[in-house]
């Protein structure tokens, strides 16, 4: 079972990468792009058949390692 953990910077935390990409997209003439935020995805192959259990495990992994809860939030979803 594949679970995807998406980690984004918390609301309000400076996102230097997003800011730079936003600027670059404007330079490339993509004028109607507003805010850009950049995050990480971690795709986990979990040996588990139950969706809920798989997500719960991904959740625990995100808390323990994958996200830095000081500045980041995360979401988990089963993708396959």
């Amino acid at each position, binding site marked *: 079972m594949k679970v995807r953990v998406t980690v984004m910077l918390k609301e309000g935390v400076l996102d230097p990468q997003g800011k730079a990409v936003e600027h*670059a997209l404007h*330079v*490339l003439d993509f004028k109607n792009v507003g805010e850009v935020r*950049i995050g990480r995805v971690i795709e986990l192959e979990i040996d588990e058949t139950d969706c809920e259990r798989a997500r719960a495990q991904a959740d625990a992994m995100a808390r323990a390692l994958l996200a830095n809860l000081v500045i980041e939030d995360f979401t988990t979803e089963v993708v396959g």
Partner: protein
Amino acid sequence: MKAAIVVFPGTNRERDMAIALRGVAGQAPTMVWHRETALPAGTDLVVLPGGFSYGDYLRCGAMAAHAPIMAAIREFAQKGGHILGVCNGFQILTEAQLLPGALLRNAALRFLSQDCFLRVERNDTPFTRHWAKGDVFRTPMAHGDGNYIASADTIRMLEDTNRVAFRYVAEDGRVDAGDPQLNPNGSMNAIAGVFSENLRICGMMPHPEDLVDPLMGGEDGKPLFTGLVEALVG
């Protein structure tokens, strides 16, 4: 030789490069700002130096590859101009597809600032003519994303057509791509630098410009610059 060093926001080894070029050419290179749309008239050599253009955010070199000056550099390349890209400059050249392949995060996932040994794979180019084929020289490296990668076809093509410029090796010239001591960033086939098809564009990760003065520990990087000056003079 008239050299132009391109400065992007976040470039930080432009002065190192200028010192190395000035030292051998006796003439200070021109700094060209990324927002320019033309190269100085009579430019013989374009250098893309090291640094963190646009913070190396997103992917190293990705945003610089779209800077306004790049159109002029493409045109310069098409006309057979000589271009040297070092470190971030190499990354920019691959992102701009002026050189094949890509540079991924170092295999050990850490920034590496240390000396390494490079082997010269051919010496019939303006970049390598002051070495002999097989020469090994020492040079500092300082990067987080120097792990050279390309598709199997591309790697085969590079090897078959002799377009590998430099390889990471042991001091005695031995290659072992699987040994993190010898191939510190994990590059495929221990590739440290490559040439374009016409051999006039060269990209490499380590910094020969930082080893051109005995005071800083040696002159091992100097032949690259003396060779270029000799080839491109007049």
